[in-house]
């Protein structure tokens, strides 16, 4: 079973991973975006980490809801509302249970990803974060952290040949082809952090 500590660990690791990979995210965001995805995510997760340290919520759902609210309030751009909604909705779906199972988490993540799709109006194949999130949630099953991480990473890499149909990259039309989507990449980092929190091997 997964408790509030586990979810706080996930968010703390996510903050560290985003911190480490911020320059790469910004680099990916340069040719097809506006060169700020790394710094925006970094700012948001730093606040998430600080607020979880300050007043640690005592249920898994509360941890994710607080993290989501902080992202909405600090990140801005499209990433803030989208990642914020992902975590908030997943947290809400977990309810107020003190511990949740892998199957509970799978359902909650599915709810969060569906909410992201509804909010952004995107579908898999549009070259967005959904291209990592959807395969990750599919692969997660009832708690396969390693498979989810691999599917998210593979999904992010598979955005390279895609034509962007949503967000700022869509302005480039054909010129968006050949670049890995920064949002799908940060989504893969989030699933990497989840696997790390669960102690999954490489």
């Amino acid at each position, binding site marked *: 079973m997964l408790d509030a500590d586990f979810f706080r660990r996930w968010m703390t690791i996510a903050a560290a991973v985003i911190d480490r990979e911020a320059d790469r995210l*910004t680099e990916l965001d*340069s*040719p*097809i*975006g*506006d*060169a*700020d995805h*790394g*710094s*925006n995510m970094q*700012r948001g997760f730093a606040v998430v980490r600080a607020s979880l340290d300050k007043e640690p919520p005592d249920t898994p759902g509360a941890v994710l809801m607080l993290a989501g609210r902080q992202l*909405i*309030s*600090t*990140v*801005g*751009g*499209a*990433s*803030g*509302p*989208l990642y914020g909604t992902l975590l908030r909705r997943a947290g809400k779906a977990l309810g107020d249970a003190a511990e949740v199972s892998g199957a509970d988490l799978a359902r909650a993540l599915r709810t969060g990803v569906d909410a992201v799709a509804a*909010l*952004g109006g995107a579908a898999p194949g549009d070259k967005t974060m959904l291209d990592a999130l959807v395969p990750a949630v599919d692969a997660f099953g009832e708690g396969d952290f390693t498979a989810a991480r691999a599917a998210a990473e593979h999904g992010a890499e598979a955005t390279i040949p895609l*034509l962007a*149909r*949503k*967000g*700022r990259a*869509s*302005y*480039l*039309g054909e*010129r968006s082809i050949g670049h890995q989507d920064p949002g799908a990449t940060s989504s893969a980092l989030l699933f990497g952090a989840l696997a790390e929190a669960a102690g999954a091997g490489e």
Partner: protein
Amino acid sequence: MLINVPETVVADALRGMAAAHPELTVDVENRVIVRRDAPVAGKVALVSGGGSGHEPLHGGFVGPGMLSAACPGEVFTSPVPDQMVRAAAAVDSGAGVLFVVKNYTGDVLNFDMAAELAEDEGIQVARVLVNDDVAVTDSLYTAGRRGTGATLFVEKIAGAAADEGQPLERVEALARQVNESARSFGVALSACTTPAKGSPTFDLPPGELELGVGIHGEPGRERRAMMTSGEIADFAVDAVMEDLDPSGPVLVLVNGMGATPLLELYGFNAEVQRVLTERGVPVARTLVGNYVTSLDMAGASVTVCQVDEELLRLWDAPVSTPGLRWGR
């Protein structure tokens, strides 16, 4: 770059703005710029916002006759809902608030969330989306046309209507009319450099230009060998006219992207006016300058807005903001 560190660029600019403009209330911590006399009794308030890096848009357009408040985000990043709700609460007199939103995914999502939260607080909110950039095809396969130069026309004309005491539905309808009557097209002669990245956002070798460029350092749709000012004017006005066939007089904005000297902008305006005359389009008013910028990008955009008598009267109405000021 003339900065301290990238992390404080927006806050530093807001502190400077506060010092230069005592007629505005600049909340540096919460990132909201409000006209000092807000809320103005009985009048609709206008709130806009967007990523920083486009100055004077939007903060420089706060003041009587234009915006009631502006919410600056990080560089090229939409502000967050908290800022917009705070701004709406500060300026609402009870007559309602119009959100002026440029059509970018982030701006739309954050303003939508803010509208919901503000309505929960009992504030009546209407929203107008600005999407005038013809370089982006408005289709299911893109995020839709971008909001660029027409934002200035929308904020000025709707702001004047609000200043006259017109009700929210009417101010919103006028804002919508301006947006639907306006089209823009931009070109870049250089990429811009965001403070966070520290190097140009895309490669544009000297001797080449990007046609159909946006205002966030994103490259355009097409790259060509350098053209003359006259050739660029032909191309830009033609692109605008493909989508807008004005039957009456127009407002023209020849807008600099940040690094193009006024000498060149005025020369470019002469060419734009020549093309419009050749196309038989009567120009009522022209504005030349750096108004909707993209940091240090070199280049320009052309916005054409068809106006009727009422829109022209509202355009001519007094305005008193750091970035636009006449008639008072």
